[in-house]
């Protein structure tokens, strides 16, 4: 781990310490079928109320499907069963916009910024009536967004688009953030920047992160949930998982060559 990341780095708290607190998110026996494909087959896990919980697994095991089911974005042709609770509140069958307004922030895979809109317009969309959008906080994290307000989001670099996608969500208060592969397709330097930002964000709001880059996982995650073929294959301390080369290789299909 590079020296300049030290200030934001906390020694991962022990799992027992985190487990003493009520989980912010509880997923029980979640099954998702889309067009006849049984993508999730009884997935259960919890997300601690602080820090980063990472959702791992090979391509196509259902990580994105899990996040989308939590935020209510399973396609209309899909069928979702099981229980998803944020705190005491059941999330299933509630429309996405209500869940999001209730404090569930979602940063999707591939950023999904509105390419034809300006940066400022992308941010303005996230404003909500009755609340003051936290532009100060967002521009402090991403000064670039302030400078490029009038630029079309489609002309931003991948890294800048990712910053915009995260910034958009941080304009409002969140109880939990769902972040799907934020470093996908980004240059190594930008990956480090995104990881730094997420590290700072996670100090104030719990994050459920889908991430393939194990260096980022090692830097950010305290807890890990590993999916395999639509089921939970492993849960526990993320750092422990990364130390077990054989386990990492069998679950994730990669060597645990963690680049810092």
């Amino acid at each position, binding site marked *: 781990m590079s020296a300049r990341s030290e200030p934001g780095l906390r020694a991962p708290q022990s799992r027992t310490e985190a487990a003493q607190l009520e989980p912010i998110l509880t997923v029980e026996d979640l099954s998702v079928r889309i067009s006849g494909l049984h993508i999730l087959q009884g997935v259960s896990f919890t997300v601690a109320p602080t820090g980063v919980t990472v959702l791992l697994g090979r391509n196509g095991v259902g990580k994105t499907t899990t996040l989308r089911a939590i935020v209510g974005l399973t396609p209309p042709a899909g069928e979702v069963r099981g229980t998803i609770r944020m705190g005491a509140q059941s999330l299933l069958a509630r*429309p996405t916009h209500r869940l999001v307004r209730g404090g569930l922030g979602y940063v999707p895979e591939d950023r999904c910024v509105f390419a*034809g809109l300006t940066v400022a317009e992308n941010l303005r969309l*996230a404003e909500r009536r009755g609340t003051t959008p936290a532009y100060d906080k967002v521009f402090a994290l991403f000064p670039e967004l302030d400078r490029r307000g009038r630029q079309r989001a489609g002309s931003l670099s991948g890294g800048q688009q990712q910053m915009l996608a995260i910034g958009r969500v941080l304009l409002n208060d969140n109880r939990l953030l769902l972040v799907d592969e934020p470093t996908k397709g980004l240059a190594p330097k930008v990956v480090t920047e995104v990881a730094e930002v997420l590290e700072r964000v996670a100090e104030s709001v719990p994050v459920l992160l889908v991430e393939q880059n194990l260096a980022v996982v090692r830097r950010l995650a305290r807890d890990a949930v590993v999916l395999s073929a639509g089921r939970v294959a492993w849960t526990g301390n993320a750092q422990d998982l990364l130390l077990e080369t054989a386990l990492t290789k069998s679950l994730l299909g990669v060597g645990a060559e963690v680049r810092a």
Partner: protein
Amino acid sequence: MSTVILLTLTGLGLAALYFLVASGLSLVFGLADVLNFAHGLFLGVGAYGTWWAAGNLPGAGPDGFGFVFAVAFGVAAGTLVAILVELVLIRPLYSRTIEQVLVTVGLSLAGVALLQATWGADARPFPRPDWTRQVTGILGAQVPNGGLLLIVAAVLVLGAILAFLRWTRYGLVIRAGVENREMVTALGIDVRKAFTLVFAIGGAAAALAGALGGVYFGTVSPGQGGSLLIFAFIVVVIGGMGSVVGSAYAAVVVGLVQQFVNYYGTSGLGDICVVGLLAVVLLLRPQGIAGKVATA
């Protein structure tokens, strides 16, 4: 020379009519992915609403302020029907394309039948101010005022829609929704309100097309909406689903091609040329002139 000017301006009048119908269709499809075959019904309601108001509503009439009032009544009726159609029939069927097509096609047939049953199948003379029957001399061409009125109205509607999309919060939501509807909901926005709104805007524009089309043609008949709707769909596809500006360009192209070819070629050839143009656009640029972006 005067023939060319006359053909251009009557072509633009036709284009204006197409644009008024197509702009709403395009927004509705771009945002909500609904192919609304009942859009012609809104036009019919606008036309018959205006016609009825001019004859029956106190204060409304075929001339002066009474005529403006009659048109306003027709537009309000078309808007109301559009909102009801969205809330009652379309909303439960979002993301069920086949059912939507069945419902909207059925509704357009039922709507025409209802108009026919109420006021008969024959064309009725449309109440209109005297000045709209006259012509204006422009560079030697005698251009019907009804056509000019349509052009002015279409330009105003285009300006109003663009200003709305550009400057208002709902305009922003619609532009974003045309690009990625799911992401709009993922930002905590109830995108269904925007659906109702685009139906209302589309219904109002189509109803205005019905009223002013009645002025232009001088008559109103139950089937008018349906035949205009076919060309409006062609305009939407050529212009690019979801783009109001694309619809405007495409409407001008379609209106002019139709008018010029029908005059210089054989009558009816212009309509075939427009369909040919559609085929060429679909082959060379399937996303249409402006693609899937609600440009402001």
